[in-house]
């Protein structure tokens, strides 16, 4: 601050008032002497000499040296007149050129003036090859002249073309005439070069008038669209894209669903599926499966075809006339109802199979008995001599019936066993009633401690005895009663049985016992 004040004073040429400014004035001088390069004076006075590192950093970067663009003297240009070799009229024009260029060099742009090959024809050639109903020789001559005059610049030719007394010619007419004449001339004149270059040249004279006209019409109509039409077109295009996208998404979802539901059976990658398969009512399939499952659950029912493999989809014959039936029979065709959920539930295709593959297997648990039963009847449950569709379904029905029978047999065995048990108990009870004392003694021995313990707290339970308990009790007693005649092992088993019984039905059993004893 002090320094700036001194500066102000010196700028305004205010003489220093006291001795102190003298001192202050000396200081900046000393400082400025040490001021490093590249740092402004103001900044230096602010930060002082105490920050040399900072000063070094703030040092102004050295710029690249300005390129030396040469100290040569300026190029000298001069106005010269020149002669264009491409001109035939020998017109003299002038232009600026470097003085250093050789004045004798020819005009460099004259080489770009290339004269196209001019096709000319003699009268003889014209009469021989070039006759055309739409063109007179005079007009053709005029056309060729004009073309030559305007250097085959078609639009100019078209603009300037004005044959006196001739019909108006379109650009395509002229092109067609010109190119066809050229083609014919090239083709019919003796050719010195090789065939390839000849055909290449003919190719370059190729002109399809129709196509050209159509093309121009298209371009015109494209250009003449109204903004509304353009907008509509764009909207339609967007709509189309959107539909395509939707279609793709649907297909993907559908495939996903099929894969999930049908798994490997769907055969998606290689099978071409038509629309019908996609509309198949899948939920119906699930419902059906559920039903069959509940069929297995119901045991008392005569077993259905619950786990047997069905012979393909259920076959419903279509009402058909005799003729188509005969046709189907001849070609071995079976028709199934389309509409029902049965035939089309499986969205996936059922692959080709042999009839015998579809012979059903009986339930695994019952299989040995069913197979035995069928073998006794002279039927092989796994192979048929003639596995036709009818025979396969017959076999299926037979296996079904046998399964039902075997299940009934099982129930019967159970009932018979129960009858035996009940009879046994009745018999024992009778014999027990005959000699009650002995029986009771035997029982107490056989049951041992658990019973004794129970006897201690012979509770007030009891009351009505269920048949079941009674029966079990009877068995325990029966075993006990014969214990004396049998070995020790027997008695131990009986004990265990009775003790199990007791633990299960304590009060009841206790009650019974008391009743019997008393």
């Amino acid at each position: 601050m002090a320094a700036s004040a001194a500066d102000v004073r010196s700028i305004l040429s205010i003489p220093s008032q006291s001795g102190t400014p003298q001192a202050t004035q000396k200081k900046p001088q000393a400082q400025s002497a040490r001021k490093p390069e590249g740092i402004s004076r103001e900044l230096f006075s602010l930060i002082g000499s105490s920050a040399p590192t900072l000063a070094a950093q703030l040092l102004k970067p050295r710029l690249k040296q300005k390129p030396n663009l040469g100290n040569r003297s300026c190029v000298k240009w001069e106005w010269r007149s020149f002669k264009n070799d491409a001109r035939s009229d020998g017109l003299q024009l002038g232009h600026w050129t470097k003085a250093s260029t050789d004045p004798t060099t020819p005009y460099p742009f004259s080489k770009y003036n290339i004269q196209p090959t001019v096709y000319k024809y003699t009268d003889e050639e014209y009469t021989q090859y070039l006759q055309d109903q739409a063109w007179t020789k005079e007009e053709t001559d005029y056309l060729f002249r004009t073309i030559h005059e305007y250097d085959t610049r078609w639009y100019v030719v078209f603009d300037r073309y004005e044959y006196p007394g001739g019909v108006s010619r379109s650009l395509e007419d002229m092109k067609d005439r010109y190119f066809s004449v050229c083609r014919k001339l090239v083709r019919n004149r003796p050719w010195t070069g090789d065939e390839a270059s000849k055909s290449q040249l003919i190719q370059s004279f190729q002109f399809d008038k129709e196509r050209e006209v159509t093309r121009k019409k298209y371009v015109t109509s494209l250009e003449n669209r109204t903004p509304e039409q353009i907008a509509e077109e764009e909207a339609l295009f967007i709509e189309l894209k959107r539909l395509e996208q939707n279609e793709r998404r649907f297909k993907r979802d559908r495939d996903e669903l099929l894969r999930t539901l049908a798994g490997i059976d769907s055969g998606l990658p290689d099978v071409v599926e038509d629309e019908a398969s996609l509309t198949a009512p899948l939920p119906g399939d699930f419902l059906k499966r559920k039903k069959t499952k509940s069929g297995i659950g119901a045991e008392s029912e005569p077993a259905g075809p619950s786990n047997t493999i069905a012979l393909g989809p259920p076959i419903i014959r279509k009402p058909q006339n005799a003729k188509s039936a005969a046709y189907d029979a001849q070609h071995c065709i079976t028709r199934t109802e389309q509409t029902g959920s049965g035939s089309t539930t499986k969205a996936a295709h059922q692959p080709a199979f042999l009839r015998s593959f579809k012979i059903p297997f009986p339930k695994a648990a019952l299989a040995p008995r069913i197979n035995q039963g069928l073998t006794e009847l002279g039927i092989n449950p796994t192979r048929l001599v003639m596995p036709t569709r009818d025979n396969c379904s017959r076999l299926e029905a037979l296996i079904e019936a046998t399964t039902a029978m075997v299940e009934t047999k099982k129930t019967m065995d159970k009932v018979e066993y129960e009858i035996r048990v009940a009879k046994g108990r009745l018999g024992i009870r009778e014999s027990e009633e005959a000699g009650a004392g002995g029986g009771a003694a035997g029982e107490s021995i056989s049951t041992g401690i658990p019973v004794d313990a129970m006897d201690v707290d012979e509770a007030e339970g009891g009351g009505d005895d269920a048949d079941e308990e009674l029966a079990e009790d009877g068995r325990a007693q029966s075993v006990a009663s014969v214990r004396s005649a049998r070995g020790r092992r027997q008695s131990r088993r009986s004990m265990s049985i009775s003790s199990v019984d007791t633990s299960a039905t304590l009060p009841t059993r206790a009650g019974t016992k008391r009743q019997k004893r008393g």
Partner: protein
Amino acid sequence: MANERVRVRGLSIFRPIIYGNTATVLTPKEREALPSPDHTHKWTVAVRSAASKDGIDSVGGADDLSYFIKRVAFKLHDTYPNPSRTIDKPPFEVSETGWGEFEIQIRITFIPESGEKAITLYHHLKLHPWTASGDPEPIPPLDVAMKMGPVHSWQYDEITFNDPYQNFLTILTNHPPTPLPKAKRKPVPFHTSHPASLEASKGGVPEFTTVMEKEEADRLEEAKKTVLKQHAEMKLHLEEKERELKRLQKQLGEA
């Protein structure tokens, strides 16, 4: 064209075929000529159309199956040189000599129009004469077997195509199979599932007929009737037993 590759829904079409083998005992002379003299039989395993051709002494083969079968691969026992024999054109059969019976894997590939995967089936090569009771009987000596004539073991089956492609269906309907004869003209082909046919199978080259199908249908129906009858009886019996059980339980309960 697109219409051609649409599946015809709700339609299944099948073609009856037979597969199996015929085996004959080699004469001692023939055996000497063989590179492996331990071979006792010569046999032919084949896949053919079910109906037999008139005037030709073979089982089946009336139709040329190549209109829907592209190739058949027979996988012989590993001891044979190149055990996998692929036959690309009819007749789809392999002839060999050998001494033992074994399982032959037969793989049928369909023409591409079908869009179907190949199916695989198995045939037990049968060399020794059939016996009524099956395996336990001893194999008769060769000279006895020779007198019994060639052994035939053929299985009838139906290749079923579900929802065929339109163009495949057209191919199939252009080749209706020769129907099986309605009456028995030749011996019946023996089948283990019908041992009673042993006698009827003797005396020449057998032929499949619709009579066989009818017979089997009758047998199945008969068996079903028997089973149903037994089942009905059993049910009556069961009811009776259940009543008895109830009575007994009641008795026990009363006491």
